[in-house]
């Protein structure tokens, strides 16, 4: 496929987010029929124990127990499970190749002008080896996020497709990331109180900017602490168009930030949120979303002594929107293991359907609802994974992945290396095996 992908219409957008919909160009009305799979529709249609899905022109045409029709490609789904592709969250896919090599990493900046405004979607590397590895393991899209750089605002997140194309952007500027707690305190003068001061100062200045835009742009206003670019970026937060996603863990920090969000009248969400289960009701009442890593129960810092495996389950039962982060420092290269994390959340009490939704439908709705992804329903994108079994199970593998109705390659560097070395005994001259 050429780099120039047919760009279809710009869809109506929610909350003025700039959402660009990308669909693969399909030369004719190609149809694919997946037959007899267990289908998690993620829609009111629920779970079909054995159902058929018809794909036409990259879009799901129909979903039913039995579709007796012909198609260009017929896939036998018997004994297998079909879900929408995984939406990986808050990682650096396409922004890093090898973690220890700074020259391959673009996720953070020390440039003090770029805090809230720092965005990384324009430097997404669509040829990164992380993309085929994650895609062939069932991840079809990801929310990339900057890491902390110069100060407590890390920057803006964007939703990217893992289809391997340069035009990978699905939605830009969907959230702004910031930090609170031990590390942020260290960055902001040594105290959480200074971090809180800076958070308030930034939003206050964003409002000052909003009300004095021309004077500020012309340099006829008093000096502000934050760059004009940062204050422009923060408009989306003060207008409640995007969430301010703050990494925070301690119970008191979460409560302090709920208070802060209420006073500033912004939409807040928490990432990490080790002790969120202790204040689940308050978080639910404030309608704050929570991003948790269900594999992390370590009391790894003094602000996360209360971390536990049933955090996700308790929050979810309390009515909080729960979404899943990847596993620690493997959250980009091994982003796909989030499905095992979801399995762990279920093992520790979370409802299965909610756990599945936490890495598919919940983020789809949270970051731009009408993108037509996240459900197996008529009119939705054919962004699908056929699994050998239960997608949350550690012994299950992805067998085929479709993006925009197109069966994507299941090859990656690992499969190539495996093929090269799997038969050492026959021929050791491996360099010619490609």
């Amino acid at each position, binding site marked *: 496929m050429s780099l120039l992908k047919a760009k279809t219409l710009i869809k109506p957008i929610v909350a003025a987010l700039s959402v660009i919909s990308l669909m693969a160009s399909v030369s004719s009305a190609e149809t694919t029929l997946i037959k007899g799979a267990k289908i998690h529709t993620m829609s009111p249609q629920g779970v079909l124990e054995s159902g058929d899905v018809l794909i036409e022109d990259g879009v799901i045409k129909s979903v039913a127990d039995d579709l007796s029709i012909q198609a260009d490609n017929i896939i036998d789904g018997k004994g297998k499970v079909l879900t929408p592709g995984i939406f990986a969250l808050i990682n650096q896919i396409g922004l890093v190749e090898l973690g220890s090599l700074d020259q391959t990493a673009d996720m953070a900046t020390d440039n003090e002008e770029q805090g809230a405004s720092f965005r990384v979607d324009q430097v997404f590397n669509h040829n990164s080896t992380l993309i085929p590895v994650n895609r062939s393991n069932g991840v079809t899209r990801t929310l990339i996020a900057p890491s902390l750089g110069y100060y407590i605002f890390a920057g803006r997140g964007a939703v990217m497709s893992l289809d391997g194309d340069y035009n990978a952007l699905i939605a830009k500027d969907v959230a702004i990331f910031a930090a609170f707690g031990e590390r942020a305190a260290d960055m902001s003068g040594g105290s959480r109180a200074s971090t809180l001061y800076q958070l308030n100062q930034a939003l206050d200045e964003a409002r000052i900017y909003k009300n004095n835009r021309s004077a500020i742009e012309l340099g006829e206003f008093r000096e502000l602490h934050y760059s004009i670019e940062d204050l422009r970026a923060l408009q989306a937060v003060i207008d409640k168009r995007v969430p301010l996603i703050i990494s925070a863990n301690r119970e008191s920090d979460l409560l302090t930030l709920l208070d802060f969000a209420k006073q500033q009248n912004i939409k807040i969400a928490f990432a990490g949120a080790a002790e969120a289960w202790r204040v689940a009701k308050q978080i639910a009442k404030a309608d704050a979303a929570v991003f948790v890593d269900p594999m992390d129960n370590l009391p790894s810092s003094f602000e996360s002594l209360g971390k*536990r495996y049933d955090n996700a389950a308790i929050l979810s*039962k*309390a009515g909080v929107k729960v979404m899943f982060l990847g596993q620690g420092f493997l959250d980009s290269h091994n982003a796909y293991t989030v499905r095992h994390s979801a399995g762990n959340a279920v093992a520790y009490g979370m409802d299965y359907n909610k756990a599945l939704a936490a890495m598919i439908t919940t983020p789809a709705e949270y970051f731009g609802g009408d993108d037509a992804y996240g459900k197996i329903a008529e009119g939705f994108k054919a962004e699908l994974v056929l699994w050998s079994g239960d997608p949350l199970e550690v012994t299950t593998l992805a067998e085929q992945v479709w993006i925009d109705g197109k069966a994507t390659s299941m090859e990656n560097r690992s*499969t190539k290396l495996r093929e090269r070395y799997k038969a050492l005994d026959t021929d050791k001259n491996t360099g010619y095996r490609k």
Partner: protein
Amino acid sequence: MIKFPAQPRLILAALISAAFLSACEQPQSDETKKEEPNTAFESTYKVKSYHPVLIKNATVLTAAGDRIDNGSLLFKDGKIVAVGTNIEIPADESLEVIDAQGKWVTPGLIDVHSHLGVYPAPGVDSAADGNEMTAPVTAEVWAEHSVWPHDPQFELALAGGVTSMQVLPGSANLIGGRTVTLKNVPARSVMEMKFPGAPHGLKMACGENPKRVYGSKGRSPMTRMANIAGFRAAWIKAADYKTQWEDYENREGNGKAPKRDLQMETLAGVLKGEILIHNHCYRADEMALMMEIADEFDFQISTFHHAVESYKIADKLAQNNVCSALWSDWWGFKQEAFDMVPENVALVEKAGACAIVHSDSPTGIQHLNKDAAKSMASGNAMGMNITPEKAIEWITINPAKSMGIGDQTGTLEAGKMADIVLWDGNPFSVYTKAEKVFIDGALMYDRLDEKYQPVSDFQLGQYDFEVKAQEGGAQ
């Protein structure tokens, strides 16, 4: 090139581990004590007294090749008495019978690569004691002298079914120091956790870490070739030290004893076959070089750790009888971890080499069974037929052998330590949890009984978690 005469190393290793067994069973005479410079820091681990237990109707994976459906397991006084379908049940009033219908039983899990206690939680500088990054050779340090028994991560690992683990120094140095093998029990000192009779290991590290840590300080090693030179220089000194002591011992106490040197005692211990090499080494080409060094100085490498590229030289690893301790699929956090294949464990197994699934992670150690399950599934997708009774070996008997404790634990066989996990289902499932964990026949963890859920000194009294859980969220 100086070549020591080739030794039948395997036989030697077997003899040594037998010698360790007898050493711990018999009181040492004064004479032998005189020849052993290090009697300090010996294990004071005590088997807890507990009533005999019969687990019946379980699916038993023995890790000795068998899967026994509707199996029974009897253990008493710390040892396994019998395993099978039709075992004789003793008439003993104190016998506890556990009906394990639908549940699975395996040996206690063993992690060959952990830093619990030396990098405890919370991860703060004041407690980060795992890596003496001050010189490329620090063979003199012992990990056990950094182990904090109150690291709350020990009980998390216990809840994951881990009964024994090897704690290693970090990997900044070419030769990082001695490892220690622990029983995963609450204790007041590391001596109370030390696995009785387990040999020490020696941590070595290839590749990026030593050259980065020291090269960035303008010191050697700055390159991989200096890594190798550093290893060889150390072994030349060690061989000389060993000879000095052997000469002294041959003089039967006459003449002046050589001066003790903690670095050299450790390295000479390796050359004598008493200390096992655990070598952090990712790349296949570097593993091949390390096996050359082992050949040059006539020692055996027990295990390559994090060996992301073992699949490339699985045949050579089998030939040299070196184990590979692996993750199922970690990759990309540095260049030497670039060539990951999820079939690594399976391909090592296929070549007939010793495969181990390890953690190097306080999270991973709680899920060794699931990491093994992933490796099993990847192997099977490639066309192999790896069964649960085979995969369980990767996290039990194979690490036990690698650590020199395979004669005592790691399988469910009569006479062995009763280190046992009762799982609430198939352990190779994401939904399965360890329900009961026995160490030397004593119940040390019970998911269903709070009395048997240890809490570290550190966490005691920090929060009243359970009460808040009810108030906070769950309806």
